[in-house]
């Protein structure tokens, strides 16, 4: 009984490995939760006390900070999901969709910080949009005194997050889509007289949503606990909870450190509350879906709906595109007084100034991203071949870093890392990144991996090929696109990581991202332009490679080109 026995051994190994991989999160959580309750011997905290939570509660407007974080996370995730879902429902499988998909794919993983800067440069009172209509329509000769971005309700942050998450959600839907019988169900549903959106909603949505649920929850938790975007676009008085926690952590005062830990625990709870709300939304959605299915309503005239969703998708992408172009323009702008639409002169002075400082962080960023994403891809392939056909639930431990706000465990981890004597280096930062990169890589690779018809491998082994040979010659080539996409996703995730880099790098390892966010308070738009542009271009190149290579390699294989 060779095979069943092997199978029986492989699965526990896979599960064990998965559990092992989530240990950093658990250790980090312990390193956060213990100080929150007063236990941190290194700083003289030897007794458990609820005092730090009381101190936290006494912070001015702390409830407002928490509430804005929660509301912004839920709203932005909901908007992004609905818009992208309707867009996919209305257009997936059509020629314009393929066009937009290729247009968007380089944008899919523009780092959060870069896209936040892009949007800030657009919508600020002295930003491009106001300049566009000034002074002719507005009469402004000086930038108006508006609280944008950084409005107290967090609306600019919601817009920024939604615009940024749309490409990501589109990516995960696109990754899940090839496993569903899209063309057939489209034909069937339109033959039955259903509109494109309704037909898709009825025939495809439940299966599609099941596959993308985890990424959606990850987006939700991320949006609720984001630091860098909130620093750039979010409210200032008070800032959102995660920003305040980050500030306390940067504070040298011992009390602030305990306060931060207590805040991180609250942030953890906030993440859970957000997920709870989301599950409620899912329930309501399921009810609506059931009613839609049984009502028989065809809703064939859905052109307006489709167009709207497509427009929002396109406009939000255009916003980021334009914003990025603005970043580029600012980076070479000479004098650019308000309300001029274009700079009066161009100069590469900013690049000249930035270049010397740019090289090291750039090299570090690329090294860390390559190390962590390649390691993550290898581990993901190992995990999946050890038992990738089971339910995705078994991998839940690996996904923990996505469902736990990073601020809630990264600092605890740093305490531990320093405790065991790790000094900040490219390798330690890459190892930290791996914790975040792996779940995204696994998320990206998992659905296509599981969806590949197992009979291909059964045929290959029936042809006398070993399982390793089958993996190398059948499965991996058939999944080449999925592997490269996963790699590009991992690369992009690593490039965009802010908080873990700052904390583990401890100022000794700096990346483009930490430098860019550090510059955001300085307000030198030209230098910010340089850094944000470079930060945005890195994942760009990764996705470009991921989409071009399979096209090139499989240009004569129709079935391999999705």
């Amino acid at each position, binding site marked *: *009984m*060779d095979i*069943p026995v092997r199978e029986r051994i492989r699965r526990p190994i896979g599960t064990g490995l998965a559990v092992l991989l989530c240990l950093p999160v658990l250790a980090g959580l312990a390193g956060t939760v213990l100080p929150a309750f007063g236990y941190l011997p290194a700083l003289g905290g030897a007794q458990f006390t609820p005092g730090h939570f009381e101190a936290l509660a006494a912070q001015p407007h702390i409830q407002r900070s928490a509430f804005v974080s929660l509301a912004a996370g839920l709203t932005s995730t909901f908007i992004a999901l609905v818009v992208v879902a309707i867009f996919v429902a209305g257009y997936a499988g059509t020629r314009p969709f393929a066009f937009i998909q290729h247009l968007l794919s380089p944008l899919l993983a523009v780092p959060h910080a870069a896209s936040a800067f892009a949007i800030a440069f657009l919508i600020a009172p002295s930003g491009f949009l106001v300049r566009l209509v000034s002074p002719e329509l507005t009469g402004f000769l000086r930038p108006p005194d508006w609280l944008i971005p950084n409005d107290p309700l967090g609306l600019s942050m919601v817009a920024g997050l939604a615009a940024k998450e749309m490409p990501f959600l589109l990516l995960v839907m696109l990754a899940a889509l090839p496993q569903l019988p899209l063309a057939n169900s489209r034909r069937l549903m339109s033959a039955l007289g259903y509109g494109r959106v309704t037909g898709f909603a009825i025939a495809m949505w439940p299966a599609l949503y099941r596959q993308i649920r985890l990424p959606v929850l990850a987006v939700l938790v991320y949006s609720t606990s984001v630091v860098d975007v909130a620093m750039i676009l979010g409210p200032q008085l008070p800032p959102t909870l995660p920003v305040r926690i980050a500030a306390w952590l940067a504070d040298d005062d011992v009390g602030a450190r305990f306060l931060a830990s207590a805040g991180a625990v609250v942030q953890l709870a906030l993440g859970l509350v957000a997920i709870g709300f989301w599950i409620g939304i899912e329930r309501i959605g399921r009810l609506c879906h059931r009613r839609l299915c049984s009502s028989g309503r065809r809703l064939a005239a859905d052109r307006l709906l489709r167009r709207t969703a497509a427009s929002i998708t396109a406009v939000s992408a255009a916003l980021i595109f334009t914003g990025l172009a603005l970043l580029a323009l600012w980076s070479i702008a000479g004098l650019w007084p308000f309300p001029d639409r274009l700079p009066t002169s161009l100069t590469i002075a900013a690049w000249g100034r930035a270049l010397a400082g740019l090289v090291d962080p750039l090299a570090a960023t690329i090294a860390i991203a390559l190390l962590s994403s390649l390691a993550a891809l290898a581990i993901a392939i190992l995990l999946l071949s050890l038992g990738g056909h089971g339910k995705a639930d078994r991998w839940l431990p690996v996904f923990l870093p996505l469902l736990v706000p990073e601020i809630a465990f990264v600092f605890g981890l740093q305490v531990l890392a320093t405790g065991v004597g790790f000094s900040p280096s490219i390798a330690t930062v890459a190892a930290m990144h791996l914790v975040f990169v792996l779940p995204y890589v696994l998320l990206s690779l998992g659905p296509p991996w599981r969806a590949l018809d197992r*009979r291909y491998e059964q*045929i290959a082994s029936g042809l006398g090929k*070993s*399982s390793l040979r089958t993996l190398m010659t059948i499965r991996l080539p058939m999944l080449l696109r999925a592997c490269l996409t996963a790699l590009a996703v991992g690369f992009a995730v690593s490039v965009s990581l802010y908080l873990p880099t700052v904390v583990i790098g401890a100022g000794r390892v700096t990346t483009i991202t930490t430098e860019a966010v550090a510059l955001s308070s300085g307000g030198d738009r030209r230098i910010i332009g340089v850094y944000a542009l470079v930060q945005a271009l890195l994942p760009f190149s990764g996705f470009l490679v991921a989409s071009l290579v399979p096209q090139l390699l499989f240009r004569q294989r*129709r079935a391999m080109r999705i």
Partner: protein
Amino acid sequence: MQTPGKTKPLTLCDVTIAIDGRMLLCVSATVMPGDVLTVMGPSGSGKSTLLAYIGGFLEPEFSAKGAVRLGEEELIGLPPQRRHAGILFQDPLLFPHLSVGGNIVFAIPETIRGRDARRRLAEDALDEVGLGGFFDRDPETLSGGQEARVALQRVLLSQPRLLLLDEPFSKLDMALRQQTRELIFAKARIAGLPTILVTHDRADAEAAGGQLIHIGAETQS
């Protein structure tokens, strides 16, 4: 291609397959080289699972026992690639990243060396089923019947020790089904392969002409 003398009879000895403690089937039979054993049963009766057990890719939720012997050799302890059971499914499942010829070259045993020799072998095999000149074609551009023939040649050129047919005709239309069926049975006979066919189509069983075993509940509807 296989020489008939080298093949051995396939013996199933009290092969039982169960899921959740519920027994699905119990089969004993001997299939001589070149003969076809047809196992008929409705869907869900476990007939595909029987093939998975013999081929070596049983899903872990099933439990199975019983001996499967090729000549004197016990197969069940072997990993699937050493059992070497050529299998044809309902779908031809040509590897989409390889050319038509690449699919067949992949199947040719490593003992046959030399790029040109392997390619020639594959080209001849394509020729034999009326697909001469198809070597460099994209499998995606083939018709259903053409795909089925490539899949058949792919399996035969791998020099399998037995042949497992999992309703390989059910997706073909009537005329094509007849043709393909005859081709496969003829080839299996020439290669002297003990063959097991599972199907729910009585016509398949009649065409196979060998022993017939019914499993599961009587066919409804």
